[in-house]
């Protein structure tokens, strides 16, 4: 993992932030964008470069819900759990996705194709309820539309694989 060109990109992120320990959050953001998630090996590396105790870096990475320490699925569905979305019924949509694709919120399907995550308000409340699928936002979402869209996205990967 360390020898590929992603290592070079990480080096650039570290350098851009002047190897400052106060930029730890920015550096973790950068690392997550490059690698997709933050595993222990990567955190050790960052701790080493910034000269920070590994426990402190791990403590920061686990404090903030935006940082992922496990590999997410190939496609990620994110459900907004903000108040407006809750009031407008995001809960039954999540339940329907869980049932349809056999996975639990916060987790991935067995084949690693799909994950479902929950996020706090993404600030598009007038469009509630909000579900995003791989960064495409579906506003005023309904079960049917969301499930159809997920199936489409999953179908596309199959097509590509063939």
């Amino acid at each position, binding site marked *: 993992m360390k020898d590929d060109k992603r290592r070079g990109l990480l080096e650039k992120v570290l350098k851009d932030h002047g190897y400052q320990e106060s930029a730890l959050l920015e550096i973790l953001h950068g690392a997550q964008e490059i690698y997709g998630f933050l595993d222990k090996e990567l*955190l*050790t590396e960052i701790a080493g470069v910034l000269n920070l*105790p590994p*426990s402190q870096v*791990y403590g920061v990475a*686990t*404090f903030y819900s935006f940082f992922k320490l496990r590999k997410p699925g190939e496609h990620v569905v994110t459900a907004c759990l903000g108040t407006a979305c809750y009031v407008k019924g995001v809960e039954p949509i999540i339940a329907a996705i869980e049932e349809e694709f056999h996975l639990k919120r916060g987790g991935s399907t067995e084949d690693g194709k799909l994950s479902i995550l929950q996020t706090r308000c993404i600030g598009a409340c007038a469009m509630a309820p909000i579900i995003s699928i791989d960064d495409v936002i579906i506003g005023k979402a309904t079960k049917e539309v969301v499930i159809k869209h997920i199936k489409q996205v999953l179908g596309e990967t199959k097509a590509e694989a063939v």
Partner: protein
Amino acid sequence: MNQHTMKLKIDGIEVECVEGSTILTAAKAIGINIPTLCYLDGLTPYGGCRLCLVEVSGTSKLFPACATPVASGMEVTTQSPKLYEYRKMVLQTLLAERTHICAVCIANDHCELQAIANQHGVDHVFYERNWSSNKIDSTHNFLVIDPNRCILCTRCVRVCDELEGVHTLDLKFRGKNTDVIMDQDEPWVKACSCTSCRKCAKVCPVGAIYIEGENIEYTKDPDVAAFIVERRKRLK
């Protein structure tokens, strides 16, 4: 005296102390004992346990005596029915949070939480208790950590960072899922940065960190922090 001194009143008694002292030390100087758990002389105050909350005239807010600096003319109340009630609730909340069963705890009779709960007449816990069953880590040669007895006072984290200087210990996650970790949440035996100095076991107020096979009476030595700080002054 070179240092600037100031006068304040604690429970009606006038006390003069140097600028920068906390309400807790000012009270101690005149023999007023305020209960504490996360506070430890020699470590940076944490202000987390909320046992040492006191009332300050002129505001309805409560302040942690351990972390609040004195101010000139301040009038502090350390004992009131409300404070007593809230201290009891802090104790009950801590007892309900994880698995605290004194009879089967190594720190029985040498536990600060137990002693303060006794002093405050805590004879029951009004919340339904949450029996945590987290894994005990006894992989280290002699140090053991039982997260089920941890009250997250962070004395161990602070002593490891501030006095031993290696920062092996820290916290992971947040809120009710917070826990003490070694390095990157490794089993203790694999935490390379740990020097096995035992200070964490010495300062733990409860039975969460202890030394296997050693009588807890010998292990517990919370004064070690202040002692080290005092001795270090010689180096400067």
